[in-house]
């Protein structure tokens, strides 16, 4: 076995120092080493989007990043958005529009949309669909997710303008 090496990360504002094998995927690091199981794993090769998180503000696939590559980075996972008592505005819109059924894809959807809306809040439906195209949902048929994102974008745009 290769030796473990220390890494430092800040996840949702909390600092962690842990020993990892170089081959440890960031997704497994979050779920198994830090117990942050809100980040889901579907395909482990970049296709389904379930594992999407933010690294230094950019959305990334946590299954296509090694934990060691995230040394000294600032990470945000779905646990950093809001909680059951206090959903953040995007999560609230997902609830209002019934944008989830089983919820498996939801954390990846939320992180993808968080990155999208941080760049642009005046999105056409086509741009919303294009932005969601890297996140697979087997339940909803996407329409309610598009509705939630449109509404969240409008609210974010109203707030910032």
């Amino acid at each position: 076995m290769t030796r473990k090496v220390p890494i430092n990360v800040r996840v949702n504002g909390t600092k962690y120092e842990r020993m990892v094998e170089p081959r440890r995927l960031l997704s497994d690091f979050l779920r198994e080493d830090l117990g942050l199981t809100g980040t889901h794993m579907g395909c482990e090769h970049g296709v389904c989007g379930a594992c999407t998180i933010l690294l230094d503000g950019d959305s990334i696939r946590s299954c296509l990043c090694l934990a060691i590559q995230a040394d000294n980075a600032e990470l945000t996972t779905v646990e950093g958005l809001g909680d059951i008592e206090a959903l953040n505005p995007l999560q609230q819109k997902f609830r209002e529009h019934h944008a989830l059924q089983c919820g498996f894809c939801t954390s990846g959807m939320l992180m993808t949309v968080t990155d999208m809306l941080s760049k642009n809040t005046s999105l056409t439906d086509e741009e919303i669909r294009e932005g969601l195209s890297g996140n697979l949902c087997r339940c909803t048929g996407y329409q309610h997710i598009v509705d939630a994102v449109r509404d969240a974008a409008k609210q974010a745009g109203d707030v910032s303008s």
Partner: protein
Amino acid sequence: MKPPIFDYVKVSTVEEATAILADSSKEAVVIAGGQSLLPMLNFRLAAPEILVDISGIEALKSLIERDNVVTIGAMTRHVDLGSSPIIARHFPVITKAVTHIAHLAIRNRGTIGGSLCHADPAAELPMMALLLNAELMVAGGKGPRTIAAKDFFQSALETDIQEGELLVSVSLPLLPPNTGWGFEEVSRKSGDFALAAVSAILVVNDGEISEARIAVAGVDETPRRMNGAEAMLRGKMLDDDHLTAVCETIQSEINPETDLQASSNYRRHLIGVLTARVLKDAFAGAGGIFE
């Protein structure tokens, strides 16, 4: 699945990277954005002994215009290429092409160097390198050398990069005035690899095409320039009959495969339709009047 065991070194200079790559006692593999390599590691299609992470080499992240050449560092991410004003001004065809590469989360990490070295036959940036007569600067191995894009892509996932070599940057000569461009792609779903993609550059002077370049992806072992069709266009105007003849020539020169995504015939059909659109766009963009 999970990656096999390997060691990991993050380097901060090109010299450090090439020194590790030159040490033949251990199989070292470069990791840039990891967006093609990590899927291969997760599937255990690759089993390097050491990963050399080049993402900390600041010198590989520059994108500059000097003496009529735009030079793009190998670690330039797809997202940076897509938002670069220099690229948008001189090579809007690249700005368009980048929108077809995967999804935002993958464009946030994937790099031009990684895409060229991975050399997927359906990838957009290798096709852009061919279309734009790119020169690829390589360090390490037997010393720095420059490789023309047309000599770089050898077959699917095979390039002219030799053991111990690192791609450092990609240089694109600026295009002449009166240049128009076109880019079209069909994929199963937005962000998927192309079933077929076509791009073109036309230069039009006095109503006539003085320079023509057409590149295709997804329909052969490597991305390809369509030299026969380009020769048919040079010195000509563009009208319906000629356009049909050019499209048919291209359709007869490619060797698309049948796979789970699409049949060979369907890909050949797509190339015909897309080439006609791309050439019309490029001709109009260069000021030509289609008859």
